[in-house]
């Protein structure tokens, strides 16, 4: 009985996570904005981490085809968001093309 409950719980948690990921992916539809790997200067190898305060920063490098280059920083605050959202923004950058 306990095993059945455990399996059911795992299945539920997994489905909730998938739904959550799906929702956030749509929210984070960044079109073709290129997010470069520069992510916090004291970055981990994977380029994903949270600072001690629980916020994260992602450096953005966007090159338009007419020669304008825009550099900036996406800051994700601790109150609203977590490592997971940072990861999604970052992951989107991996798959995105140059604008």
């Amino acid at each position, binding site marked *: 009985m306990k095993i059945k409950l455990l399996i059911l719980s795992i299945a539920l948690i997994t489905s909730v996570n998938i739904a959550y990921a799906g929702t*956030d992916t749509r929210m984070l539809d960044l079109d073709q904005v290129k997010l470069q790997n520069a992510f916090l200067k004291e970055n981990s190898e994977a380029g994903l981490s949270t600072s001690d305060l629980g916020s994260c920063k992602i450096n953005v490098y*966007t090159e338009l085809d*007419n*020669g304008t280059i825009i*550099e900036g920083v*996406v800051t994700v*605050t601790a109150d*609203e968001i977590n490592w997971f*959202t940072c990861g999604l923004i970052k992951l989107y950058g991996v798959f995105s093309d140059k604008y």
Partner: protein
Amino acid sequence: MKKILFVAFMLLGINAYSQTEQADLYLEYAVIQNGKQKVGKFYKIKNEGLYFYENSDSSHVKETQEDNAYGTVYSVELKSSHEVHGMVKTNLDSEELLSSERIFNKGEYREFVVKEKLSNIDWKLLTDSKEIAGFKCRKATANFKGRNYEVWYTIEIPILMGPWKLHGLPGAIVEAYDIDNYIHFSLAKVSTDKQSIAHEELNEDNAISCAEYLALKADQGLEMSKHIQSKLPRGAQFNVTKTTNNWLEKDCN
């Protein structure tokens, strides 16, 4: 029924903005702009020059060859402004220059037609000479649109315009580059075969000036900033730290 009407309306719209002309000279340029290679095509149509780039994987450019009573006629049909870009139309009669420019504006790339008066480029004709691709060439230098150009031209092809917005030399440009090596044009092909060319007309109705064009380009940083911010989830903030304008045209002169 609505779909049929919509398609018919779209076709009418496309026809209204397309034009077929006879070109008597074709020059093809290998272009390297900001490290990226592309092919520039220039057609001389009477006293007009038509220059554009096309994507190499384009399926929208149709080239055909047909023999008739007057000889062989080559036809080029350009169907999409997305596959054909950077169009420049130089008119020596009206002394006007029209160009199609892509600018990031209101959340997307938009095409703008820029109308300028054909300026007299202050070429310094030098005595240096050399042979390039079988053409006897002479050197000229000038500042144009904020960049210093060195150009090799040949009077063996007597044409006053092209490639791009360059014009005013007594012969075709065989090689041209700016001293910062941002752009480099090399003549790769010459054809004097009669050619029929169909292309989308540059609509002058909403044309903007060169100054307006540069101002819109300067606003792209802010426009992109707004766009990125609009796509981010709650709690994420985007701030621009640096904008670099690495433009081919730095000014309007």
